[in-house]
């Protein structure tokens, strides 16, 4: 099964995936095939014993408009969001291959339908 993997530890919230996707799908203003959500910034009141006690993270979310760029894939091209992703944190492929990237250290999420 095809899926999109996000190593959201490194997402910078730059909006490139959102705009590239909208270009591909031709969506109207305010509509998205992928949209970034944001948590933080805040500092944990308890010391979590981490190098950095700040939380500030972005996670892209796929909407029902996303078709994993079926047409682009047929042409051998990367999904538009993966190609544009400035943070190099998006991956596309078979779900069972993608999960092998989980490294036990950074935060990941796998999206499919």
């Amino acid at each position: 099964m095809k899926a999109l993997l996000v190593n959201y530890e490194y997402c910078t919230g730059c909006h490139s995936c959102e705009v590239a996707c909208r270009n591909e799908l031709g969506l109207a203003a305010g509509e998205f095939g992928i949209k970034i959500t944001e948590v933080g910034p805040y500092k944990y009141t308890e010391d979590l014993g981490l190098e950095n006690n700040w939380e500030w993270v972005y996670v892209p979310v796929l909407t029902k408009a996303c078709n994993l760029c079926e047409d682009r894939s047929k042409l051998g091209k990367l999904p538009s969001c993966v190609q544009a992703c400035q943070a190099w944190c998006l991956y596309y492929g078979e779900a069972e291959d993608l999960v092998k990237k989980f490294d036990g250290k950074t935060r990941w999420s796998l999206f499919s339908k």
Partner: protein
Amino acid sequence: MADFNEYMDTVNREAYHDGEWQWQEGDLTVTRTTHWSPPGCHMGCGVLLYTKDNTLVKVEGDPLNSVASGKLCMRCLDMPEAVNSPDRLKYPLKRDGERGENKWRRISWDEALDEIEIKVKDIKKNFGSPSIVVVHGTGRNIGWQVPYFASAAMETPNVSTFGFTGFACYLPRMIGTSAKFGDMVLADASQCHPDRYANKDWAVPGCIVIWGNEPIKSNADGFLGHWLVQCVQQGSKIISIDPRLTWWGARSAYWLPVRPGTDAVVGMALLNVIIAEDLYDHDFVEKWTYGFEALAERVADKTPEWASQYCDCDPDDLRGAARLMATSSSCAIQWGLAFEQQLAALGVTECAADLMAITGNIDNPGGNIFIRCAFLIEKRYGLGDDLIDPEVYNLKLISKTSGINESNIVSCADTDAILSAIETGEPYPIKMFWIQSSNALACPGMDAPRVYAALNSVDFVVVADPFMTPTAVAVADIVLPVAMSCERNSVRTWWTPVRSMVKVTSYYEAHSDEQIVMDVGKRLCPENWPFATDEEFATWYLLDQRSPGGTLFDKDFRQLVEQGGTEYWDWDETYYKYEKGLLRPDGQPGFNTPTGRIELWSFGYDRWGVDPLPYHLEPPESPLSTPETFKDFPLVLSGGGRSFEFFHSEHRQLPTMREFHPWPLVMINPVDAEKYGIRDQTWVWLENSRGARCKQLATITEQTKAGIVHAEHGWWFPEQEAASPNFFGTFDSNLNNLTQAFYVGQGGIGSPIKSMLCKVYPVQDGDKLPHEVVAEQGNYAQWEPGQRYPDIEEPLVTYIK
């Protein structure tokens, strides 16, 4: 972790037409090229332009171009919206009413050129060519074209940005490192290697210091910030020196939230720790530097505890950061605009340069590489200024008090000297402004109302821009429509690789920057403009530029275009050039400085009349320098931080960018919001001690520390009334109502733009708007021509060394 090799190995090269520069996909033509501007930024990423019937339909990043590997920012992805914007200027316009009425008459290019030719020749004859000032905006693709135009057509030495006091953008870091290192320096994110992160000589930086900039948003100085995100994924530790919490600070080993304007204090403390704890690179210091003992003596008492009283950083964090810098496998410093937007610009630069040097992070993999523009195509700013009669060139408007100006290390004129000449008529009056892609009122013009008054008093003003800007409406007599990046044949080297942009569409009568300066140049000084086409002009830049021997490049414009638009230079990707005799004209090992060494005690600085060792200058108004003023204006006001959506004052007319970022935002910490009664997403005034104010939308956030607010720059509202007095609302939210001219640091360099004091309070219905104040009384306070505002309070703390 992103695997660069895996990414490149799995990209389907056939699908992206490897080896081709232009092809068809269905009914679309695809062109492999690069983009610079307009609309702009400082980068030149590889793009695939999709066009149909003379229209730009879509832009994608080019995965096979090594500059950005197919990654692309939202502004470039949205380029069709800019290129096809209904707001674009289509034809040359002549003012058909009073200035500011926004009444225009369409004229032909011939009419425009006729009028410009007559006016310029008349001004040259009656007042001398230096009475013409040529202005260009930062980062636009006109850095060699417009200076050449100033010299080879206008015959004036007065080319500059305008309204931007203290050369407060990158130039201080460039001249500072030129003096101390003999070369310029960049953090090494593998960008000089065509095979990038896979290059066998490159090493991931052990530690990256992000200092005074948010590179993923600003991409300044030819450096793409996201390159460093890739480094972090490969293991680089982060030190963030920034009053704001950024993406970097939230992921850092150490975040040093410096009080704005005191970065040199941080730098001196870091030097102190590294020397006091004997963590410096003895071998490098002994072999390759000069003046270490003097440096050690200067910082011997600059302990972290001493520093914390000025910079508000935790002493333990300062100590930890210094140790990490000195003990990492390598340490790259990505520095930014905050360096020079404070008074001690050259002092901060010295600190950073000395930190690179004493830790041995000089021209090393993953450290700080020495860089020259590819193939030595661009040798220096000020192309063609030797064409100007030396007696005329000596009339260049420079500050009399600046040693740097006397040394003529800076090719551009001094903006304060220009402002003074306009206001006083001394040493000669200014009769004409040629403004190409600069929006002085909305963006660089410090004390925007004063800049408006000055420009409006100049007899003849030409503005060339893709859009009708506040500056054009307010002061232009003729407005020329400028073509966008996909509509021009052009070349650039801002470092490496050399890059071409190729014309694939056209837009009504918009002409490229190259075409405009060539057409005017041929009218005024035809002997300097022997180019039949823009392609010939570009080829001349690549190969010739009048110099015996030309450049080190060997391909013409068309060849560069047809190989996809980029070529890397092996000199830039060579490490340890100082060991290999690659830096000095005599071919000997060492550095291109008077001593042949890195000068920790700098002869260049000393000659300029600048402290040759690290120093700090306290902002003219600050909690320490003006405690009385601080009681009434209890917040430190920083500003100018970038956002993903905009490049300076550009992109405000694009619906997509305004969807993501509708209004100017001022960051306020929740503690201050509570204290001053500010609610999130409400309009607030920022006001300073001379009563100047602007309004922005409050965003309550932990991104700024309590006691510090951060406002945005460059705002205007293309959807609002253009005509006087509103001028697209450009005064109302303008942070530059609060800045000031004529306040500079040592050597005439640096300006306290990012370190002011203010108070914050809610906007009320019926409050008088800044544009109404400007219309009624000109400005918030009175000034003497050519002088800065008198101090409200004599500063207590000034020079710390």
